[in-house]
């Protein structure tokens, strides 16, 4: 174990948490990667919302792990293109955008919206005579481009299009020295749009920037676009199954290459030199292509003759051929579309002015991240310039195979840290521990293991024994055995609401059972086996529920069922198990006796808690409104005139649904019911319904005996009602027919 504390400056107001890691590395399925312009920092974002900052210098070292998002990271970007920049923004798939400071790992600001950003890039322009402003260009699951202020994360204006506004798949900025900068965006359907970035400081939400032109290119599924300022005219467009070079002046196709291997698809590409192209694929391989020189030369212009530049096609090859390659994973492993992400760092080594113009020695680094194993690969490409190509004897010697320069992942780093985990209590080895719970009021630490044993220890004593040198006495711990499979979740109800008995402790495991323990004696009180899937979590119903429900806790299981378990009387009150989709939220309406379960397809199942019936299923907009309306009943103790009389309504529901147990319970146990019911009967048609049910279920003998008054009242109203006469007539007619 080693500690990886976030690098931070200590100040009296800031408390720096210390994190101690076990033998398993944190899960890091990387789905976004960005390299900062200083060339020494790489930021990766993963599926669970974690952001890792890596330092690149003679190797890759992870420096910080930042946790601020709960959903997967969809975009990461630096806030400005200068090399001294220390801030970056991250966007996740729930619409959250956070602004971070790298040096102390602090989240400076965050906003939430419904827009999901997929790619963000900063752009700096002259906002007035002496100042330059930087804005972030964002594209995502919305039409065209939003321009965001990097300091406060607000959308300043939109870059929109008059013709065919659509989601932009990728964009690049073309900077001309003599003209205004241009922004080229490509949409998923193959449309190319060109915007001229003028007067950006005058734009605001009411005045968007519109495009100069749009052109439809017949390309499917464009993934990436790249432009190199030294080539001035060439634009590389990478699509899933092909890539091409387009001449910017007349939008004609200069070079076109279709993937020969159809199992792998292109992810992104970069123009690494005036005649070379680097393409990254979904199977983690990288290819460097040599373009045919003759196609690149402008028609009618004289080719530049110099010792450093080629004049004809290498090997007289008129098609692009592969010069170098980095191997990917094996062919028959399934490669998903978004598994691999690429970032490119144009690394300018030297640029010395010479007599014939600028000679730039450019070395490019390709950085690749993989979701499969959470690894980051950095490949410092050797410059495949003219000297190099001249020295290659024949085409069959190519392609040269490389392995990349540095490759690192959290898993491989963890393997190099080989301190053994010998504590004095082998039962606490983290290989076996699945979950834990710290009960503050008793100072106890509970650890659930994968073999079903729960270990109950005193927290301070255990922690001291693990990490400090403490004389080895007998450790006080107790094993709670009862589960057959791994313990997944544990819960101490008293900590959440003091109405529960402080000695109850609940655990749920993969063997589909919930066990209630006595925390003081460590004995098993009861074992519930109502669910059909592994128990996922526990919830507490609000305190203003009915008396029976307040004795319960709710358990949610992997077969999409929710159960209300009465832990005091060891009974299951309600098992809601009809849900076809996974449960994402449970809310309560205690005054109407409803439990609302929201599923992942947006539907809401409304369950009646006391009578264990499904009231209704709502979908779409109604479902959203219903869930939002639950908040209005928080904290309200008594029903008002708007919410109906509690017990009487339940009695009627019970009669309607023929739940006789509930009916008996209501009438025999709860005296106030009768008075309330009488009140209702006098003012509404409840009497008729009640008596219909009684008459049709004539076996309610004891009901008739005990509540004579109720019956008399009801009869009085019933006999005067028209429905009763109709019913009598129907009965007579039926009897007459027989």
């Amino acid at each position, binding site marked *: 174990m080693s500690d990886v504390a976030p690098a931070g400056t200590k100040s009296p107001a800031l408390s720096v948490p210390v994190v101690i890691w076990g033998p398993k590395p944190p899960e890091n399925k990387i789905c976004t990667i960005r390299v900062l312009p200083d060339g020494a920092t790489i930021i990766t974002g993963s599926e669970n919302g974690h952001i890792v900052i890596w330092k690149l210098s003679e190797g890759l070292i992870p420096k910080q792990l930042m946790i601020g998002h709960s959903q997967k990271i969809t975009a990461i970007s630096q806030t400005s293109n200068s090399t001294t920049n220390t801030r970056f923004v991250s966007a996740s798939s729930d619409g959250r955008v956070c602004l971070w400071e790298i040096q102390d790992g602090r989240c400076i600001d965050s906003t939430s919206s*419904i827009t999901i950003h997929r790619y963000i890039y900063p752009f700096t322009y002259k906002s007035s005579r002496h100042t330059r402003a930087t804005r972030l260009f964002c594209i995502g*699951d*919305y*039409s065209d481009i939003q321009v965001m202020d990097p300091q406060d994360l607000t959308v300043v204006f939109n870059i929109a*299009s*008059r*013709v*065919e*506004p*659509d*989601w932009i798949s990728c964009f690049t900025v073309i900077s001309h020295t003599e003209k205004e900068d241009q922004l080229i965006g490509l949409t*998923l*359907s*193959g449309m190319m749009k060109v915007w001229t970035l003028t007067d950006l400081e005058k734009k605001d*939400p*009411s005045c968007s920037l*519109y495009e100069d032109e749009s052109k439809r290119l017949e390309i*499917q*599924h464009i993934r990436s676009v790249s432009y190199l300022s030294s080539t001035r005219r060439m634009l590389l467009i990478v699509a*899933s*199954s092909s890539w091409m070079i387009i001449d910017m002046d007349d939008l004609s196709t200069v070079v076109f290459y279709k993937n020969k291997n159809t199992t792998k698809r292109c992810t992104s590409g970069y123009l690494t030199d005036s005649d070379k192209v680097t393409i990254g694929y979904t199977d983690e391989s990288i290819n460097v292509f040599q373009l045919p020189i003759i196609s690149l030369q402008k028609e009618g212009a004289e080719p530049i003759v110099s010792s450093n530049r080629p004049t004809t096609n290498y090997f007289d090859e008129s098609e692009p051929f592969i010069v170098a390659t980095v191997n990917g994973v094996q062919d*028959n*492993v*399934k490669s*998903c*579309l*978004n598994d691999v992400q690429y970032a490119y760092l144009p690394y300018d080594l030297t640029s010395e002015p010479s007599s014939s113009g600028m000679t730039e020695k450019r070395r490019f680094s390709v950085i690749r991240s993989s979701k499969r194993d959470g690894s980051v690969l950095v490949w410092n490409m050797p410059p495949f310039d003219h000297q190099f190509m001249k020295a290659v004897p024949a085409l069959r010697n190519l392609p040269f195979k490389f392995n990349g320069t540095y490759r690192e992942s959290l898993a491989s780093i963890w393997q190099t840290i080989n301190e053994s985990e010998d504590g004095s209590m082998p039962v606490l080895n983290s290989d076996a521990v699945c979950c834990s719970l710290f009960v503050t009021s008793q100072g106890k630490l509970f650890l659930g293991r994968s*073999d079903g044993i729960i270990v109950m220890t005193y927290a301070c004593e255990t922690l001291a024994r693990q990490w400090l040198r403490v004389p080895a006495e007998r450790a006080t711990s107790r094993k709670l055995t009862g589960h*057959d*499979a791994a313990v997944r979740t544990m819960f101490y109800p008293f900590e959440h609401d003091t109405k529960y008995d402080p000695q109850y402790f609940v655990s749920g495991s993969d063997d589909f059972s919930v066990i209630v323990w006595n925390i003081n004696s460590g004995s098993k009180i009861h074992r519930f086996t109502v669910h059909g*899937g592994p128990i996922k979590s526990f919830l507490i119903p609000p305190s203003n529920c009915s008396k029976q429900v307040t004795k319960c806790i709710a358990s949610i299981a*992997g*077969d*999409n069922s929710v159960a209300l378990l009465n832990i005091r009387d060891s009974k299951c009150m309600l098992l809601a198990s009809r849900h*076809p*989709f*996974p449960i994402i939220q449970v809310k309560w309406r205690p005054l109407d006796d409803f439990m609302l379960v929201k599923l*992942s*397809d*947006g539907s809401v199942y409304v369950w009646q808690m006391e009578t264990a019936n499904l009231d209704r299923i709502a*979908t*779409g*907009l109604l479902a*959203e409104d219903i869930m939002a309306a639950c908040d209005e009943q928080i904290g309200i103790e008594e029903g008002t005139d708007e919410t109906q009389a509690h017990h009487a309504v339940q009695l009627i529901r019970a009669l309607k649904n023929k739940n006789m147990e509930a009916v008996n319970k209501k009438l025999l146990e709860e005296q106030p019911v009768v008075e309330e019911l009488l009140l209702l009967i006098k003012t509404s048609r409840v009497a008729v319904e009640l008596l219909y049910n009684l008459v049709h279920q004539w076996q309610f003998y004891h009901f008739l005996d005990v509540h004579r008054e109720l019956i008399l009242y009801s009869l009085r109203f019933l006999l005067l009602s028209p429905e009763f006469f109709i019913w009598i007539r129907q009965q007579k007619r039926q009897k007459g027919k027989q």
Partner: protein
Amino acid sequence: MEGGHSLTITTNYPPAPASPNPQDERDQIKANREFENLWIQRNDVETTLRSALNHLKSCCVILNLSAKCDERLQVSMSHGTTEKYQLMSRTGSSDSLKAAVTLLDDNVIQAEVTIKYPKAGGGFFRAVAQPDVQWKLQQLQDLGNHISRVTYNGDGGEKDHFNSTTGKRILEELKSTMNEISLARNSIMLPRKRSLLELCYFPPTRKFNPPLPQDQLISFYISCCRLVCASYQMVPKTVHPQGLSVFMAESQLPHLDDVIKHLNIVMNIVQKLISYLSATM
């Protein structure tokens, strides 16, 4: 006669079976699970993905997404047809707002509104919008784009190379497919209303002929597969506490209902496969 032998009868009972070792049981359960996992992968994955792709292909055909979806679906190029929809208000007074909208795929070609407006002559205000900036119903475009994105996802993969790691990858991909499809459904089930400020900036608002009065705003959006036209009118606070009165007119879009049906089926079958796979992992 025999005598003198002692007849001993020995019965060889087989040795008592050892009590089950809990670790062996766990190993057995784990092995069973892996076997079931492989079985599901071999039997169900291919058929489910193919069926899902077929339904998505029908959605692409209905929504004319041939340019955006995956080529392997082989959706033929087609152009949408112009359809005119009459929007009526379902509740309240039926003449407070009426609209007629001409749609081509996800574009609004023309919109005519008739609002009960006391300040205008005759008590009614009529206007026609024929925008020069392309007016897209963004929700419909989002629906199409989400569906196109999903079609690139479900790549079959090699059939004979299933093992536990491929199971995990398939499960992840199925979950991301579910996510994308529920985003697609939500884009037309839940309304995305523009705020009043955004409506002011929205270019088609200014393209009404005759121009909308200063205290009136019109908004078009989709909710529960219906095309809804909402008119926001500023009224004095005596009439309505918020100072704003809202009228709505709506019309059913039948092709969206078909799309939702297909998406629901895809969600059901993918969810079934996800629950089978997660139960055996």
